[in-house]
């Protein structure tokens, strides 16, 4: 039972355009959501997060949107750069869970120059 789903295994975008990565979840107890970026042969690195009390969080070129009623979140990258090419994981955590993270399966983003 996948509680966090990333239905697009891959996404290709032209440099300078917007990248939109999507994530859906089923567990209504999740109250905090994170995006991680992963390069080959490295560990995931934290990118941006959002609490369930907000619907948007922005950090430079990265914006995360949360739609609680639809149990959906998305990561927007504008403008996309070739260095953004990586696997992006969506993760979620429930209050009182010792900050355990449940991860989606990831989306490989390729930004074409």
């Amino acid at each position: 039972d996948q509680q966090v789903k990333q239905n697009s295994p891959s996404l290709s975008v032209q440099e300078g355009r917007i990248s939109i990565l999507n994530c859906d979840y089923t567990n209504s107890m999740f109250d905090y959501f994170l995006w991680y970026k992963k390069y080959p042969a490295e560990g995931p690195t934290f990118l941006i997060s959002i609490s369930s009390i907000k619907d948007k969080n922005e950090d430079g070129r990265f914006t995360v949107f949360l739609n609680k009623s639809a149990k959906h979140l998305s990561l927007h990258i504008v403008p996309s750069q070739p260095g953004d090419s990586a696997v992006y994981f969506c993760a979620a955590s429930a209050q009182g869970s010792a900050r355990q993270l449940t991860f989606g399966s990831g989306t490989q983003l390729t930004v074409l120059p």
Partner: protein
Amino acid sequence: NAGVTQTPKFRILKIGQSMTLQCTQDMNHNYMYWYRQDPGMGLKLIYYSVGAGITDKGEVPNGYNVSRSTTEDFPLRLELAAPSQTSVYFCATGTGGSYEQYFGPGTRLTVT
């Protein structure tokens, strides 16, 4: 600061062998986690610890054991290696005061 270090980087085991994956952090974080990532899949939590002397099972604990005798170290033990344990293993830490976790570079394990 080295952050989170994991050793070894790569290892090949024969079925039935045992080994310990090492994880050390110098971030003074109380929370530590072990994940495995299979090809094309997300990370799954194996075990976690909220402080020295305290450990608990995650989603996929079978075939593994952990200990946490110090804040810095959180080794993961495989007692009887099986091909299903072929994976990339990541150790992570967190403060407990926030949700962000900080990951090590991973150990790629192959069991044949």
